[in-house]
């Protein structure tokens, strides 16, 4: 069930340079099915900015009916969002899409969670759920530079966590893909910029790889055809997946990116 709800803000703070952690109370938390689902946020009562903003659910608490999102302040919409104080309400549509299939990896197996920048947040709930299930999790988290790093400690609670930064100001200098080469694992779950996803998809076509994709969205629920991507193995080139409602998480071989 997708619901539109006026959600009260429980806490809202900047946890790294331009990175905000927002926790709200929402009835629809009960409807969340898997880590990696997202919500669609209206940042104003007005009509400029017009569209909702898709933000991943980073973690949730079904007992408290709370969900947490982590977002980067970028453009007009997230700027406005970042000014909303605790106690105010925000209009959220969710939960949307299909998340990471926790069932695809078994107890005792090794899952590698690879996040790039603002692709990191949805992996947090995933890591928690995999750990609870007895899966061994390893994390590789890539950021621009030290000031952008967040959640290193939180991820470390669940398993080995390697941080890379492009400029080397924190952790390993370089890209996440440089680091992954040296790790052993059974399966990859990843979310981040498309070039990163593409590299992982190509390099590890022999492994189970799950990608969480991003695209500019209109409706967020599958009605407007804004967010399609082509599917793999389609000679006619006509078939497609909607990232908002069929995804955002796909098996790597399902989609062309």
């Amino acid at each position, binding site marked *: 069930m*997708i619901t539109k709800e006026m959600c009260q803000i429980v806490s809202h703070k900047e946890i790294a340079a331009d990175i905000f952690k927002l926790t709200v109370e929402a009835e629809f938390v009960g409807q969340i099915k898997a880590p990696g689902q997202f919500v669609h946020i209206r940042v104003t009562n007005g*009509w400029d900015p017009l569209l909702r903003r898709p933000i991943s659910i980073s973690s949730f608490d079904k007992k408290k009916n709370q969900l947490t999102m982590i977002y980067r302040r970028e453009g007009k919409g997230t700027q406005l969002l970042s000014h909303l104080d605790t106690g105010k309400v925000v209009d959220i549509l969710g939960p949307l899409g299909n998340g990471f299939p926790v069932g695809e990896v078994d107890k005792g197996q090794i899952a590698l969670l690879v996040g790039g920048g603002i692709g990191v947040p949805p992996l947090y709930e995933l890591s928690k759920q995999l750990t609870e299930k007895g899966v061994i999790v390893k994390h590789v988290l890539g950021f621009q530079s030290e000031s952008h790093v967040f959640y290193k400690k939180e991820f470390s609670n669940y398993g080995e966590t390697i941080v890379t930064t492009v400029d080397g100001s924190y952790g390993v200098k370089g890209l996440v893909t440089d680091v992954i080469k040296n790790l052993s694992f059974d399966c990859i779950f990843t979310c981040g910029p498309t070039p990163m996803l593409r590299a992982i998809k190509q390099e590890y076509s022999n492994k189970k790889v799950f990608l969480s994709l991003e*695209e500019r969205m209109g409706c967020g*629920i*599958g009605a*407007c055809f*804004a*967010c*399609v991507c082509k599917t793999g193995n389609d000679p006619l080139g006509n078939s*497609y997946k909607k990232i908002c409602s069929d995804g955002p998480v796909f098996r790597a071989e399902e989609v062309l990116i």
Partner: protein
Amino acid sequence: MSRLNVELPGLKLKNPIMPASGCFGFGREYSQLYDLNLLGAIMIKATTVETRFGNPTPRVAETHAGMLNAIGLQNPGLDKVISEELPWLSQYDVPIIANVAGSVEEEYVEVARKISQSPNVHALELNISCPNVKTGGIAFGTIPEVAKQLTRKVKEVSEVPVYVKLSPNITNIVEMAKAVEAGGADGLSMINTLVGMKIDIKTGKPILANRTGGLSGPAIKPIAIRMIYEVSQVTNLPIIGMGGIQSAEDVIEFFYAGASAVAVGTANFVDPFVCPSIIEQLPELLEKLGFDHISECTGRSWKQNGQLAYHRS
């Protein structure tokens, strides 16, 4: 007594509010959010003969009080729409208006002929104005003689009334409306989107992969209102108005301008419940404004004060 029921050619509507084509798919997604029976009608996504993938992504970009889209008529194709989408929609007691598109005249004619035979399709919306496809589309929508010809051909084969959807990207909307009226149109639907572009400040390139896209949303409302105002005074065709509607007040403004029903497009993305909320709020607003029935509002901006409202169907 309902204040909202209206009759238009082919359409007995419990209320004059319907989602606009392309903003509601074939209804499946919104049916998870509310009962589609609440709607006056549904304008389904443009249908072409063949399955179309449409344009590459990104396909949408946000602008001030508006958005650009360049979906490119992605749709499952005529056969699938007839065999899967329309039968699924028939579980609802809601007339369907099928949006008909194509690249060449023959294609429009084939889609119109076949889709108009579906039992729950009560009218066609002839999409001669989609700005996002390379062939056809907009060309049909900019040359009155071509539009008239196409309307005539489609009328010959259609089993249901035909509403022609006009493009606002033209110098003279009145001339176009008169041309399609002469071609036998039963009604008009206006407006489609305005061609626009947004450039990414960082990359220097257009945000849309298709470069240009159609501008919709509140930003274009004044243009829609003006065009409906002009056209409604010089044709006898009922008009389904659209372009930036987001509230019950907006609906009244469109009626005042000359519309007899309205469609809501972009606002569905902002508030997926916008259609049922408008339908719920309208009776009270009409009461407040002193109207017994919504049809009294049609054309009020240009009718003499004394002049009575009339039903056009």
